[in-house]
């Protein structure tokens, strides 16, 4: 009987695919089930929107794997309460320091509206303006006949960010004076001034 010879096998292929199909799933399983010492951290109990003042009711304590905790992670609830969020914070995820900002005076953010104004380098004080700063707001009408008006003595800067159309400063304008702000800032340039300390 004429027997057909078998082609010589290349063990390299077996080694190559064995590494992929055996080692990779095993390591992935080990990673998924490994027992890393968890750390108890204050995390948002629900999704928090941007410019939200964090209260004790917004937080829960969750066990987070130690490997996910970095030097930037907020580990103490007191470092979160009373601060406001710069961006949306997902529920049950550790919070980093850069995601929250301290408020110098709670009155500056209570009953306010987040109002964005387009800004240039001069408005943001050449880049020196930061979230959490307190500024005075004045409006300078385009018509020269009308005198400039000082609108607010102290307004909280919620955020300074780069948007698609350019830089934007987000201010916490008192809700009660919103209409006044709209009226006086029409056909006028909004000027910001920070007290030098």
């Amino acid at each position, binding site marked *: 009987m*004429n027997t*057909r*010879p078998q*082609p*010589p096998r*290349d063990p*390299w292929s077996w080694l*190559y695919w064995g*590494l*992929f199909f055996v080692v*990779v799933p095993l*390591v*992935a*399983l*080990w*990673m*998924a089930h*490994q027992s*890393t010492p968890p750390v108890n951290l204050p995390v948002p109990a629900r999704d928090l929107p941007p410019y939200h003042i964090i209260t004790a009711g917004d937080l829960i304590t969750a066990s987070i*794997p130690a*490997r*996910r905790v*970095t030097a*930037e992670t907020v580990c103490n609830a007191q470092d979160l309460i009373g601060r406001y969020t710069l*961006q949306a914070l997902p529920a049950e995820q550790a919070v*980093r320091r*850069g*995601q929250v900002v301290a408020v110098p005076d709670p009155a500056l953010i209570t009953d306010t509206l987040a109002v964005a104004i387009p800004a240039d380098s001069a408005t943001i004080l050449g*880049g020196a303006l930061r979230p959490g700063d307190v500024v005075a707001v004045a409006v300078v009408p385009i018509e020269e006949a009308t005198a400039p008006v000082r609108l607010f003595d102290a307004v909280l800067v919620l955020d*300074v*960010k*780069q*948007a698609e159309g350019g830089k934007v400063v987000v201010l916490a304008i008192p809700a009660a004076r919103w209409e006044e702000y709209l009226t006086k800032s029409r056909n006028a340039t909004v000027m910001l001034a920070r007290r030098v300390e």
Partner: protein
Amino acid sequence: MFATVLQELKGYFGRDFLLAAFLPILLFAGLSLMLYLEVTQGLGTALAGWENLPTLARTVVIAGTVIAVVVAAYLLYNGQYVIVRLFEGYWPQIRALLWLRNYRVGLYRKRWEYLDHLAQQAGTGTEINEIQSEQLVFYPPPNHLDQMMPTRLGNILRAAEIYPHERYGIDAAVIWPRLRPLLKPETLALLEDRKTTLTFMLSMCLLSAAFSLVWCPVLALATDRWDLFLLCALGWPLAWLCYQNAVQSAVAYGEQLRATFDLHRHDLLRALNRPIPADADAERKEWLRLGRFFYRNLPLPVPAPASPPPPRGWERVAEAPADYLEKRSRPPEEQEQR
């Protein structure tokens, strides 16, 4: 902006640099950066931070990144020769690698013998042709089996290198640098195109494997992100896919190289002011002589003086009696019709 940068790079470095080095480096550097940001601070946060960066800072970061990628790509581009040779099977003289090389050469030898056995056992001519054409493309010719390489890619390129010597006695390594400048731009472009595809695939193969080999242990030891670990491990099968593509590109490149020697070898003889040999034996001797001349500086025999060209209009004079005789041999009816 990105398109402009690409055009500038293409204009300055060439298409092969862009494809074989810059794009693979850009892809894997981008993936590595995204992975690093995701692991350290989360991609979403990093993007939000990027949006808040001043324009000047963004410009500096982009310019720095582009420069870093171009430098890395240039290093990879300069190392292409070494990379191709590595995949061909020219490995460092380390005992373990020497053992591996010998083992794999033996394996390919056994495969060749297996195919030879199949060809002898084959029932039909078509089957024999198929097996033999596989042997010719993927392995060195039968009388050069001692030049077997330890990789599939190496054997394909070796077969293409041996072909001109096998057919015409041309030493490809010596003759190719002299033939290349004589090739027409379209011929050269076709050859470069095949070579670029080959080097692109090998670069992708190397970087995919390196990406997996670096990032998988890092993720396994420093994080618990098994989802990212699995994603990074996909570089392993991607490397295999790229190598298989490189093998196919090498087949196409080898074919093109063979065709170039077939079609353009006489151009070099003309450029060297050597006579075109009358038959295959004479041509083989001529190329062997040329090879020795270039490689060992052995003097070339002076070609016999060419016979003087026939006088102008000689062909017409010689054809006239033949035409007359042909007309005379036709039947009278046909002559009248004309």
